[in-house]
């Protein structure tokens, strides 16, 4: 599903975030990307979501070389991808329901189908009663669940998450991780960047460690 081939990433400020990274994640696999902050985890996720482009090397997503995806095609590419952010990135002036339905509205899905999918996603994440709430009326854990609902509402084959439990207490963090596991159980490839070792140990999934922009394991 994901293949990095000798990928280098140097930012405009001269910082080298990735220095020759190669790894592959199979279809339907669940993997943790670990390492200290600045080790290159976030850069990996940005390259997967085409937020950044590699300076050198190649990134393949679903057997497609991302270098061949032109800027105009990026929106369509991102619709096949679910992304969960540490800071949720919710639209604070829109209701939970509108936030979760956003990817479907953008994709131009008919209203009736949107309602169905929205209900299903809210139900999966225990948010059915919160549909009309504004994000800021919810707890951090609930906001994160809204972010996850938005990421999965389009039923992507690949779900990536950047420190999804960074702001949560251990118990909530574990709930969130269980959710990811559940999506993985139904065939979604899940990639989670985290520095929470306890969590990783509890969920015996594959682990790819980074240090100074290189893969160590």
């Amino acid at each position, binding site marked *: 599903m994901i293949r990095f081939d000798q990928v280098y990433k140097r930012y405009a400020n001269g910082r080298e975030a990735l220095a020759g990274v190669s790894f592959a994640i199979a279809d339907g696999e669940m993997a943790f990307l670990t390492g200290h902050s600045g080790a290159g985890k976030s850069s990996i996720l940005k390259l997967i*979501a085409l*937020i950044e482009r590699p300076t050198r090397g190649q990134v393949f997503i679903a057997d497609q070389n991302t270098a061949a995806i032109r800027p*105009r095609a990026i*929106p*369509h*590419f*991102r*619709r096949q991808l679910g*992304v969960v952010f540490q800071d949720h*990135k*919710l*639209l604070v002036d829109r209701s939970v329901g509108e936030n979760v339905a*956003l*990817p479907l509205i*953008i*994709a131009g899905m008919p209203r009736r189908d949107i309602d169905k999918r929205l209900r299903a996603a809210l139900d999966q994440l225990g948010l059915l009663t919160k549909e009309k709430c504004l994000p800021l009326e919810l707890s951090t854990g609930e906001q994160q669940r809204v972010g996850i609902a*938005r990421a999965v509402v389009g039923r992507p084959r690949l779900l990536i998450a950047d420190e999804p439990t960074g702001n949560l207490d251990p118990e909530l963090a574990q709930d969130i991780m269980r959710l990811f596991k559940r999506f993985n159980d139904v065939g979604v490839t899940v990639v989670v960047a985290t520095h929470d070792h306890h969590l990783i140990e509890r969920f015996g999934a594959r682990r790819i460690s980074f240090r100074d922009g290189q893969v160590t394991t």
Partner: protein
Amino acid sequence: MTMAVIAIAIVLPVLLNVFLVNVRGATADWNPGTDISVYLDKRATAARVQAIARELRTRSDVAAVKVITAAEALVQFRQQSGFGNALDALNDNPLPDTLVVTPALSAGTPHDLAALTTLIGAMADVQTVQVDTQWVARFQGIMDIARRVVWLTGGLLGIAIVLVIGNTIRLDIVNRRGEIEVMKLVGATDGFTRRPFLYSGLWFGLGGGLLALALCAVAVGSLTGPVERLAGLYGSRFHLQGLGPARGLMVLGASALLGWIGSWLAATRHIRGIAPT
């Protein structure tokens, strides 16, 4: 605020245009043709007048000759000039018999016209020959310039409207940068992201246009009374014309279009520049 600026930018050329249309309306019955007025000697008899007219009609470079007797001229003058009361103070008719000669089209060049004028002037019992076209031509020259000034002003203010709306939209985009980033992250195209900004540009334009029409109506309304009183003093029944529904709709359409163009330019440019990080 934006709408008020737009409204004022629109109302200026629109009012100028209303002014011009009214001036044109008031002067529409002024003959712009190249008729020659031939004023006859006051001592010429009615038979002599008809004879001169007949003689001129036989010429190939004359299309028509109209006889206006002194009495007819007085009635006409009384109606059109607004000096009717002043005429009543005179004992006898100061006006001469007049022939209005319309040259044939073949005599349309200034040279032919001058020759004809000289020829008529040399005829017996003819006192003065006047070609009425010159001042009408001058007046129309002024009107042409004024019309062009309206278009130029309108064009410049149109550009100003595009810029004002573009700037408002740009600020809106800057304020909603976070939201736009999120939309792009979940797969929104630039076109999809741009759409609401285009709508708001369109509304700015329409709103400004409506406000401009209201201002215009107020301006015309406040001028109608004084203008009609002034016209009345000249014995005229001139009526100040407003914009009218057709041109009002045109103004609305143009302002909406300008709003759309302004927002399209700003949104296309600034949304492209926003990339999620």
